[in-house]
């Protein structure tokens, strides 16, 4: 165990692991400690709601850094470890077991926790999905014929619904909002996803609220406020995630929908950084609008950026938000934040593929949302992302014409 102050990272997910590796890639040779609550090596979360459900019944986690690489990089990974406090005066992270880790710079990459439904806190048939262990537990439940209710029509819930249908489970999705994917996905694209779920036999109910979930001799009953009840064997509660800010709050750091950081991912304590799902940061692209992103690529990019800034790079965040979701054979990708748009230009690419370009009032491209079979929209969404980063205002007719190459607009 290091006694000289080094770089300490709380949270051993994609973001923390990426930060640890980046510190080494950038030549830092002091101690690097990666503190993780889970028993596993750092692993990728995106497959948990997708491939992992569909593959073997005893799936393995997709590891970000294996034992060997951790060792070679000289990264001290403390699994099953909980950071209890930050002593900012002494610059120590205090673990639950009392161990004190001195830091030169500290990165909080604590991620999120699934938002809980208070009414079902202790019901073992009401599960959430965030960790590999959560996914394994769900995987063992999902056999042909097992009835699944998904509470919440967000990405986790819909991806799991798609997987469960492919495993032969009857699936009902309950969404409190008037439609699925209200947050961040344009209505037309949400409609395509909704229709695909319906075509695969998912019972989707929007605008419904849950009164209670009770145990029955055969499983559970999900009682709705309108009096209806749905019988099921298992319920996935997928009503969003809340950032893990408790440690930061106890340490007196500013929290504002996540641990508040500046464009350098620095908190109000210059020795403490935060990155990934747990932090809110100003997005330069949209006039400094403060956002918090729950996305794999953001976790990766911010982990790397925070590491460089811990080493004094003073590099401001400049990335365009980007994420994807796979459901059945449909691939969704969104670059930028569609709600920044005031006007939509539509590009029909044939074969069921579609991109919506979102333009600000002044014609600037601020976001692009695409959906289609497999990765058909990926190339154009990537080009759109570059146009967004350049704050380009491409001609509407070129955006709308599927034969017009977006790459030529980049040169303009």
């Amino acid at each position, binding site marked *: 165990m290091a006694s000289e102050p080094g770089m300490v990272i709380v949270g051993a997910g994609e973001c923390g692991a990426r930060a640890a590796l980046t510190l080494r890639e950038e030549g830092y040779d002091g101690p690097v400690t990666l503190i993780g609550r889970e028993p596993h090596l750092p692993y990728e979360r995106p497959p948990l709601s997708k491939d992992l459900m569909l593959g073997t019944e005893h799936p393995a986690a997709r590891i*970000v850094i294996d034992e060997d690489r951790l060792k070679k990089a000289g990264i001290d990974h403390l699994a099953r470890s909980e950071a209890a406090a930050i002593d900012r005066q002494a610059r120590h992270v205090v673990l639950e077991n009392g161990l004190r880790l001195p830091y030169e710079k500290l990165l909080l990459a604590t991620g999120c926790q699934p938002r809980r439904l208070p009414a079902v806190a202790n019901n073992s048939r009401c599960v959430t999905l965030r960790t590999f262990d959560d996914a394994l537990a769900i995987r063992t439940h999902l056999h042909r014929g097992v009835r699944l209710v998904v509470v919440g029509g967000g990405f986790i819930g819909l991806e799991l619904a798609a997987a469960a249908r492919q495993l032969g489970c009857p699936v009902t999705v309950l969404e409190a909002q008037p439609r699925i994917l209200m947050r961040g996905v344009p209505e037309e694209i949400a409609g395509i996803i909704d229709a695909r779920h319906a075509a695969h036999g998912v019972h989707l109910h929007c605008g419904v609220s849950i009164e209670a979930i009770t145990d029955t001799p055969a499983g559970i009953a999900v009682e709705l406020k309108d009096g209806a009840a749905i019988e099921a064997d298992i319920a996935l509660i997928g009503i969003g995630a809340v950032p893990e800010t408790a440690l930061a709050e106890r340490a007196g750091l500013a929290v504002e929908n996540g641990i508040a950081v500046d464009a350098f991912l620095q908190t109000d304590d210059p020795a403490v950084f935060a990155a990934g799902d747990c932090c809110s940061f100003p997005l330069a692209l949209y006039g400094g609008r403060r956002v918090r992103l729950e996305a794999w*690529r953001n976790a990766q990019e911010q982990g790397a950026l925070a590491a460089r800034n811990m080493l004094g790079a003073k590099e401001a965040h400049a990335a365009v938000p980007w994420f*994807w979701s796979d459901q059945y054979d449909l691939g969704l990708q969104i670059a930028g934040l569609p709600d920044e748009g005031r006007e939509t230009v539509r590009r029909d690419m044939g074969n069921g593929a579609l991109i919506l370009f979102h333009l600000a009032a002044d014609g600037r491209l601020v976001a692009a949302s695409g959906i289609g079979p497999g*990765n*058909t929209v990926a190339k154009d969404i990537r080009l759109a992302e570059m146009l967004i980063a350049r704050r380009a205002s491409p001609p509407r007719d070129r955006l709308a014409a599927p034969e017009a190459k977006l*790459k030529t607009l980049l040169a303009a």
Partner: protein
Amino acid sequence: MADWVAACDEGEVDEEDVIRFDHEGRTFAIYRSPDDEYFATDGLCTHEHVHLADGLVMDDIIECPKHNGRFNYKTGQAKGAPACINLRTYPAKVEGGKIMIRID
């Protein structure tokens, strides 16, 4: 034994772009560089099983359509996280209006 196989017609691949070519249960990616040369690599990203032909070609780089893993398609070299394993490349040539690649 290595064989030259016709992958596609010349001109079927746009400049600075990539297409997919499936052959005997294997999948490849055929590239045309900005300076009009042809290259071939394995068709799937080494990070996850994703077809690189859906990705974006910029100069010498192919970018995976899912996770932005980047490779130099001329050498196969992985250009950083999350892609750490190099991509296998195959010789390619133009012959009689066809793009030929040598598969072993």
